[in-house]
């Protein structure tokens, strides 16, 4: 009962104790009481900090905190300096700024390669050849089907088989090509989502900046806010390239590597996306929504995704287009409406009309090839030395030989065509409209160009074997051949059909011809090296990822070693503070007894 009275009294006086703590510093029995009091508070503070550490043993980004205990100012008495006990200063987090920066830097690379690795692994699935059922096999079967046709050039079974293998080839190519597009589209979604996340993280950092500025000052450290901010910067660095520097106020500024500011104090600049020319999403500043900053992004997941979407996948697509163009032996087509002046020797051109279907073809340098589809074309032989006027007059003469056309050359090199006849019916309304002159420049030997050199079962010149392009999503076997396999031109001569297989041999031998990469490699090798390079890219991304993951994990360990909570250590601290607390309490109760003894003396 008495003890409680004392305690009550002490509590009443607490204000006075605290108020006069420094200047009072009285020695004597009351001084001992005060010393005990201060010790109790300090040890209790120590237990609080230990408790905070223990509670956050599993909190990501948490740095353990320590309490600074200091002796209070001693008093000078006639007996000399007498200590007045202990006080708990501000708690501090144990933290190595340098490791934090290193982790953020490594994280950028980690994010980049992580993004590349996962995206490329999906590309790799598209080019999966490991199961013996990929494009490579389809290509082999296509060429083999031509050899089967060589063995029996008039055989319907062989022709139908070739058609079906060719259709499979075209389908597989188109399908593989098309499978790459959704991958790019998916990356768009990832990029947009990440841009949103960056904005959120930036806002979080700005808010934390604000809180830190408000709460810090003097000895006060906003430890937990700083931990949270460090974690946010670390997350941010996984997504985009960032550098940070701290201002004296305690707030940090976050900038991208190109110097533009993302967070400045409590303010953020927002990132956004815009749709670029190829229909994909580019990263932009919300304040400048039409200028792509894709090229300045140098790290993080955004960099990885942008690289895969805009560089790596388009390159594979281009390779596939080149391969298909090589197989087709494609000619570039250029429309030169009406005038022959734009033509020179060694070029083809066609005059076609949707209503008549007539074709006029130039042949190269008198080689005598007549590539007219369906044999309805007019062959004009032009020499490389011919002038534009000569080209025009030769063409006009050749066209005029076909009674259906009324051709004149004006201005030296312009061909005017009138009185176009569709089939046998004179159609004066057609006049010279509806005609386009397109010049075609031969792109070297391919299935199409060789096929046009040959003759089908009816002795008619072959047309194109494949039509369309991958990019146009219409690469397929030419409709005429798909409708009638007899139109496959296996014969090398018009009279030689059906037994002549010379053209089929020529086409079958394309398989081993050096047609790709400026005539240095075969179709198969070109494709194989493409698959190899996909493998290489995935392997490279995987290795880079592993490397940076190891670096980050090493640095994280280092950070944990410095800043992480060790429960054993906290237990020791706990006991230490508890003992201190117990002892301080004992000190007070002993002083209490002493006071009672003193009182009883009265």
């Amino acid at each position, binding site marked *: 009962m008495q003890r409680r009275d004392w305690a009550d009294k002490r509590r009443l006086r607490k204000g006075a104790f605290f108020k006069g703590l420094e200047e009072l510093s009285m020695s004597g029995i009351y001084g001992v009481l005060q010393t005990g009091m201060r010790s109790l508070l300090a040890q209790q503070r120590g237990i609080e900090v230990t408790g905070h550490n223990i509670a956050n*043993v*599993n909190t990501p980004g948490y740095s*353990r905190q320590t309490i600074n205990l200091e002796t209070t100012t001693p008093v000078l008495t006639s007996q000399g300096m007498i200590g007045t006990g202990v006080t708990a200063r501000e708690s501090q987090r144990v933290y190595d700024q340098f490791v934090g920066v290193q982790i953020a830097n490594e994280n950028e690379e980690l994010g980049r390669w992580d993004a590349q690795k996962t995206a490329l692994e999906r590309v*790799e699935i598209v*080019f*999966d*050849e*490991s199961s*013996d059922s990929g494009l*490579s*096999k389809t290509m*082999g*079967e296509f*060429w*083999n089907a031509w*050899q*089967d046709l*060589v*063995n*029996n*050039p*008039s*055989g319907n079974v062989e022709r139908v088989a070739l058609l079906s293998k060719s259709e499979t080839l075209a389908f597989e190519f188109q399908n593989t090509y098309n499978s790459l597009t959704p991958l790019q589209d998916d990356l768009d979604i990832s990029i947009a989502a990440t841009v949103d996340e960056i904005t959120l993280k930036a806002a979080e950092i700005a808010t934390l900046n604000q809180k830190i500025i408000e709460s810090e000052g003097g000895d006060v450290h906003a430890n937990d806010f700083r931990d949270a901010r460090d974690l946010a910067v670390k997350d941010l660095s996984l997504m985009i390239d960032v550098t940070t520097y701290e201002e004296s106020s305690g707030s940090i500024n976050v900038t991208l590597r190109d110097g533009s500011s993302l967070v400045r104090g409590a303010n953020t600049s927002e990132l956004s996306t815009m749709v670029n020319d190829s229909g994909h999403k580019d990263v932009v500043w919300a304040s400048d929504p039409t200028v792509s900053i894709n090229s300045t992004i140098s790290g993080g997941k955004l960099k990885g995704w942008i690289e895969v979407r805009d560089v790596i996948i388009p390159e594979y697509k281009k390779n596939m287009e080149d391969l298909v163009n090589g197989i087709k032996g494609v000619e570039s087509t250029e429309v030169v409406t009406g005038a022959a002046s734009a033509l020179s020797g060694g070029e083809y051109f066609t005059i076609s009309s949707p209503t008549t279907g007539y074709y006029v073809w130039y042949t190269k340098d008198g080689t005598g090839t007549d590539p007219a589809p369906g044999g309805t074309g007019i062959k004009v032989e032009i020499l490389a030395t011919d002038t534009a006027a000569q080209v025009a007059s030769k063409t006009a003469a050749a066209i005029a030989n076909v009674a259906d056309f009324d051709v004149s050359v004006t201005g030296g090199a312009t061909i005017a065509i009138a009185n176009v006849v569709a089939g046998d019916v004179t159609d004066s309304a057609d006049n010279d409209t509806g005609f386009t002159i397109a010049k075609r420049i031969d792109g070297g030997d391919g299935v199409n160009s060789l096929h046009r050199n040959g003759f089908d079962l009816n002795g008619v010149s072959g047309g194109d074997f494949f039509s369309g392009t991958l990019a146009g999503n219409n690469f397929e076997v030419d409709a005429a051949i798909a409708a009638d396999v007899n139109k496959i031109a296996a*014969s090398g*001569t018009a*009279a*030689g059909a*059906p*037994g*002549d*297989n*010379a053209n089929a*041999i020529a086409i*079958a*031998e394309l398989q*081993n011809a050096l047609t790709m990469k400026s005539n240095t490699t075969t179709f*198969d*090798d070109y494709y*194989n*090296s493409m*698959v*190899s*390079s*996909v*493998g*290489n890219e*995935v*392997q490279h991304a995987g290795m880079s990822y592993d490397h940076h993951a190891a670096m980050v994990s090493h640095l*994280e*360990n280092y950070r*944990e*070693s410095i*800043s*992480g*909570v*060790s*429960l*054993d250590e906290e*237990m*020791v601290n706990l006991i230490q503070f508890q003992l201190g607390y117990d002892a301080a309490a004992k000190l007070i109760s002993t002083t209490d007894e002493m006071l009672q003894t003193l009182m009883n003396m009265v």
Partner: protein
Amino acid sequence: MRVSNRQMVNIVKSDLFRNAEQLLKAEERIATRKLINRPSDDPIGMGKVLDYRKTISSIDQYNNNIVSAKSRTEFTDTLLENLHDLLGQAKQIVAEHSNELDPELRQGAAQQVEGIYDQVLAIANTKYDGNYLFAGHQTDTQPFTNDADYNATYHGDSGKINIIVGEGAQVRINLTGDEVFTGAAVASGTNVFDDLKALKDALEAVPFDPSAVSSLTDNLEKGVNQVESAAVRQSITYKRLETTENHWDKFKTSIVDMLSKIEDADLATAIVELQAQETAYESSLATASKMFDKKSLIDFLG
């Protein structure tokens, strides 16, 4: 070094993940029996695998071509043998009947020649796999027809038919009617139909002129030689096909071997590898459980 609790957890986690990943790879290799399960497993190896597969597929195709060409050549060879026999018979008739005085017997011989003529014509018009063998490129046109007077006409051409037996390697597999029968396409050739018709006419001629019959010996001999040299060409072709086939068979064996070396997982090695990975994985599991089982200071505080 200070060791914190999260550090221990992180190390155990990354260790477990790494070992589990390697275990999965080892299991995949056994499940698929392949070392290369995706291009990135071995990019250079993958390129080689595709190249070998292509080579094997091409060799299979070459062998298909060769097999069908061989049976065609064999068939042609049989026909040429028959043709050779028939012309030999005609020669025999010349030898036996050049001085035949009995018109009845001469008539019989003439009929025999007629029969030979018809058989030769049938051989010349033989189809193989739906195509006329001796028509050059005109494989769907009957190459020889004859009128009532036994004048034969050739409707084919001298088109050569090649097949592909290797990269850039072609073998001619056909004989044309103007090489074997009309002789128009060979040096000092003779038209066997005309010769047979001449023999028939000479035997039937009234009055009979023995010298007309015996003078045909040379031509018939020429005809036999013409067929023989065609047969020799066929057998050379056959030999070449066979040699090429053997070459491809051997080549394929070594390519298959090389493919398997790159692509296939050696089961014994793979299983040993799997066991090693299992051990590694189990030991990291054991380490993990030990680590979390471990008494901490808390357990010893009252």
